[in-house]
């Protein structure tokens, strides 16, 4: 992915769309207590009356210097808002990724080792179930069961590891199916390879064959997906963050759309996009460190 054109494209896309959408950041700030005089005055003071192009270049000019401006509504510097929200989203994303790997990889591996058996169906079924539920629904059910009925976990909030468990499962499970599918088909593939036969011909136990000879090969493509997946969790955890009250990037971005908060939306989406791009780059790096064929060139 060419980073710069993509980021510029995204920034233009947001800008154009925000200007097509009907809506007024000051009006929505005031909601019911709106006063027409005040709206006019404040908009003029905020420079919202300037032509589109002027506003875009004002924004981009600042962004290039690392200054995304002030959020209209929150009246705080966008960069600080993002840096405050980012660690929370990162924690959620990593935890969710961990969950999706913990569910997806073993499920995929076990399924691949016993293809077309009950074990295969059960494990794949369980991981695919996660991508078959709306997150807010599974979250609601989990909150009801584990927080309210059983009292094992807190309902929501973000004050430590146990608070992270349910959101991580809700989000991670929703991605486990993809990981499981990929691990399964990848491992099935690898198990057909000649070198697996070689390994068996050496008299290795099946466990050693799988663990030492098959898994690393099979998980290489999974690793690539994993890095991209973390990046997409970072940007896509909108609903999980809302339901579990996590002050993260997703909520920031959604609020920004709702309130037509251009600087904040540009800032948060560009940041998220940047993460996705970095996720891709990370995946490449990871892949090449893990795969000697690429590491040492051909």
């Amino acid at each position, binding site marked *: 992915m060419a980073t710069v054109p993509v980021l510029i494209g995204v920034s233009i896309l947001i800008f154009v769309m925000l200007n097509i959408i009907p*809506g007024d950041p000051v009006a929505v700030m005031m909601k019911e207590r709106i006063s*027409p005089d005040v709206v006019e*005055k404040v908009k003029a*003071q905020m420079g919202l009356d300037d032509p589109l192009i002027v506003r875009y270049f004002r924004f981009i000019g600042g962004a290039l210097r690392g200054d995304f401006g002030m959020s209209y509504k929150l*009246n705080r510097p966008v960069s600080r808002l993002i840096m405050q929200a980012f660690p929370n989203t990162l924690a959620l994303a990593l935890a969710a990724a961990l969950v999706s790997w913990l569910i997806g990889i073993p499920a995929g591996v076990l399924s691949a080792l016993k293809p077309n058996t009950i074990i295969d169906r059960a494990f794949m079924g369980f991981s695919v179930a996660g991508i078959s539920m709306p997150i807010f629904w599974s979250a609601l059910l989990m909150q009801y069961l584990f927080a309210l009925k059983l009292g094992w976990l807190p309902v*929501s909030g973000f*004050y430590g590891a146990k608070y992270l468990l349910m959101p991580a499962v809700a989000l991670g499970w929703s991605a486990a199916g993809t990981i499981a599918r990929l691990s399964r088909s990848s491992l099935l593939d690898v198990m057909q390879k000649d070198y697996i036969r070689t390994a068996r011909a050496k008299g290795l136990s099946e466990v050693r064959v799988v663990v030492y000879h098959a898994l690393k090969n099979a998980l290489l493509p999974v690793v690539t997906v994993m890095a991209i997946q973390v990046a997409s969790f970072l940007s896509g955890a909108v609903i999980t963050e809302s339901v579990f009250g996590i002050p993260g990037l997703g909520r920031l971005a959604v609020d920004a759309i709702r309130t037509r908060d251009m600087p904040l939306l540009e800032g948060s989406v560009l940041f998220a996009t940047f993460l996705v791009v970095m996720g891709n780059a990370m995946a490449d790096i990871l892949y090449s460190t893990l795969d000697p064929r690429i590491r040492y060139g051909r």
Partner: protein
Amino acid sequence: MRFSKWLCAIGIAFICVVYGAGTALAQGGVLRIPYLEDPKTADCQTQTISYLLPLNCFDRLVECITVGPGESKIVPGLAERWEISDDGRVYTFYLRKGVFFHHGTELTADDVVYTFDRMLDPNTRALNTDILDWVEGARERMDGKAIYTKGLEALDRYTVQITLRGPYAPFLAVMASPQASIYNREFTIKSGNRFGLTPETTSGTGPFVMKEYVLNDHLLLVANEDYYRGRPQVDEILVRITPDPETLRMLFEAGEIDIFDCDYAVSQIPYFTNHPKWKDYVASSPRVGIYYYSINQRIKPFDDVRVRKALQMAIDRKLILDELFYGKGHLENGIMPRGLICHNPDLPVIEYDPEKAKALLAQAGYPDGVEMEIAQVSGARQWLRINEVVQAMLREAGFKARIRQMDEAAFYATRSTGDLPSYVQVWSADFNDPDNFFYTFFAPKNTVARSFNYESQEVFDALEKGRSLSDQGERCELYRKLEQVIVQRDAAWVPLFSLEHVYVLQPRVKNFVAPWNGWSDMSYYGIRLED
């Protein structure tokens, strides 16, 4: 194995982040309050949405307190007494001595002058300048033509005098509204544009001091030991921000928060009132607020009074009140709801009569009915619920209504240009005066900005007159007449009902008094916790 090293690294990073992310929450004398949307700032001049922080961290010159269900009274606040000149233009407030801001300096008259001047200063970008519109020189100050406000003057260290450009009867009530909270000059200037955003840059005189503020997560307020009315009963208030109402509900059921506002789940009132665990802990109070449907006279055929009258008659308000709100409220036939001074209980009742509505439509030239739109903020279920039912009712009376959901920003933007079709809303009193209702909806610019487009010089004149009268009886007379003109004669507004505000409390919460006007935000000064 390099691969497992990677996994290890990720795992460790994850654990670090998790433990670093927050501190454990203290329990004890902590009142735990849920909040759906972050208040954004404690500075009530620059926001119009949340009164939580102004009501708990700041004080006003005078306070409007709840003296009974839905009843209020204006009492001394930071001003221990005040005088109003005979012509109703000059207000002199005598400040209490020895009131200190949280950061330690004493409140003086200069702070009051500064506070209101700051509001009018265009650089503040204040959103609540309306309340000071009547102060002499306010407009010049707002337009940047003056660098001070002529009508604001500190006579001495503890006396402040506010001069209005004409008599404005509701002014005292306005001074009790949260927007009129008093700031400290020195501290506020020093905090600059970060005032109200962090604990370090927030200082008022109120019963609670802001101690922690994590945006979109929580706020921690601690008791102000030196509060001039005495230390509050609880040690701390923890405000937990949770944007999902069901999550909030579960937090309450799991005992993690103390007060549940049934506005978040109106449908659950019977559940709570019948539940053995909660039924004894349901508090409710009337709310000085009115639910209404707007009518946009710019949109045909609503320029025809017969069509508007038909619309008034086409909604079975009783059924909605009984079924959707479990009868917890009263039908209203005017603009001034129960609890507002000058409320008129003897207004003619608007009867539900779909047949008559049809006849009226036919009379107006629409025998086959009328197409219309009902706008609402998308996903706002309290409105959706009413709209879906009303949509079905209107169909019986010949109105083919389509519900148009718009997101908030589009909704308010469209409304402010006067182009929004009918919508249902509630207006709760900011201060106990009819002006807060009539002027808001029917003043020349406001009637456009709220998409009524009810252009009646008669009404405009009466509104101005009402503001300047000082005799309460005379004012009430005027507003009651005006109400009849608007609702009964011109059918410019469809009154629905006023509702009770229902709260459910954890058993440990004592001394809970629902605020007179039915706001969700309230001062928690008087609440006590028993464990």
